[in-house]
């Protein structure tokens, strides 16, 4: 199954399922760990901001 599939929105979001899995696991273990959640999102955004840069 493609990992770029999302909930039906127009834009494809790469590895969003992976991000969702990691983030939900974190929230299940520690719902108040906002710093770690922010870190996960930041890493994701940084990674794809750079990949996007390479592609363009």
């Amino acid at each position, binding site marked *: 199954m493609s990992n770029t599939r999302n909930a039906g929105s127009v834009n494809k979001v790469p590895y969003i399922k992976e991000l969702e899995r990691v983030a939900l696991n974190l929230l299940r273990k520690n719902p108040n760990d906002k710093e770690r*959640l922010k870190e996960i999102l930041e890493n994701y955004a940084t990674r*794809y901001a750079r990949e996007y840069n390479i592609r363009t």
Partner: protein
Amino acid sequence: MPPDTQENIILELENIGCLKRLRLEFKPGLNIIKAPNASGKTTIIRGFSCMFSDRIPPSHILALDELNGRIRVHYDGKIYEKTLRRTPSGQVIAQGDMLPFADPRAFNACVALAETGVVHKITGGSAFFRKYLEELSYGNYYSALINTSQELINEYGRKLAGPTFRNFEALPLLLTELTDLHMRREEIQRKIEESRFNHEAKLQDIRNQIERKSSVLSKEEAQLSQLTRNLSLEKEKEEQFQELLKLTEESSEIASSIKRGITSSKENQERIRKEIETQTQLIEKLKKDLQVLRDSLRREEQAGPTALEDLKRQLENLNKMIILKEEEIQRAERFPPDDPEYPGRLVVDVRSEILRKIEWLEKVTGYFQEKYMRRMTSARRRFNSNVTRAFRELGLKGFGNVFLDQDFMLHVMREGGIRQPVETLSASEKLTISLILMLAAKETFLPDFPLFIVDELTLSYDPDRFWRIMNYIKRRVPYLIVTSLTSSLTGNPEVIHRP
């Protein structure tokens, strides 16, 4: 869901709240914990709750005057035990097992305490249930993701609004200003060249005039010399005629001829003298003119090109301004090397990277918003469906429909379709709705959770209606535990079982 287990649950408490030691046994069906006031009914519920949910802090469970406590549950042939320990600093630490069906959400959906959860919310007159359903459906996880992502987007946005990026935004203007300075410099340089050329041309023109005048003067002087020589010749000629005339007889024709020669020579001399005079005047004038031109040349050479100094000053100032502008542009283009975040990196790169991060985070936020909406809409529909079914099956008089609207606000519709605000319901009706909402929440989100606990809600309740609801719940939950006040003033809590 009908009870499908025949196992009893044994609960043992040691140093929990006001209870030193207690053992209770719950059987499938309805279990009524009967005890007088202040004998530990709520303590039992709290103690039991901490074996399947972490919502009650351990410090609220351990007896105030004890250092250690214990909760033990016998369930499905196994023993689950949790110990509570008070540290020297006064903190209470809980360690041990959780029941296999433990779920933190169960405290909100399956434990009806008067002072917490849905009961507290409804009796307090609140009609907003978004948070409640968010927690039960895990929509709160998506909500946390959305909020955190949005926070990051805002942080990046604030970063882009910072001084470095603001300077960078001014870069097109700075570059335009620099181009303008370069153009002004070129204009000044052109003016300097023009001034030098004009000056040189002017000098050359004067030199040419001097040369021409000098040439004319030489010619005129030569002409004057010739005239002077001619005058001398005429004088000599006259003298020779005078000598001849002395030697010739006065009345002779020759003498007349000589006399005419003398007269002619004198006339010639006179003419030549006049010509010499004119020529001398002309030469004088030429000399004066030449002197004027030479003076003019000297002055022009000394003065140099027109306004050159002023132009040079302007050029110097422009050069300085260009250097400053270029430095300003360099500062706007690059983070300083000692910048803790982006030392020496180009602002344009960092800026576009941040913009792309925002772009990705917006995509992520959009994805999670969509998931959140779908999850919450589905949760609300299933929840409403279970609420409607409970009211329909219970056949409670006075209620038409109870549901959450799309903003998760609770609507209580009376028979006949009239909406009644939650805060205007009677105490008994509020409790009825609370219990049905909790049961619907349990059936929607925790269908396999085997317990439903109701703590001392009978005080302001119509007993017939209360037991009707309890019997309805009993048919749907394996173990229903209800606390109830006894008329006696003393005695330990005891469990009365009704299958």
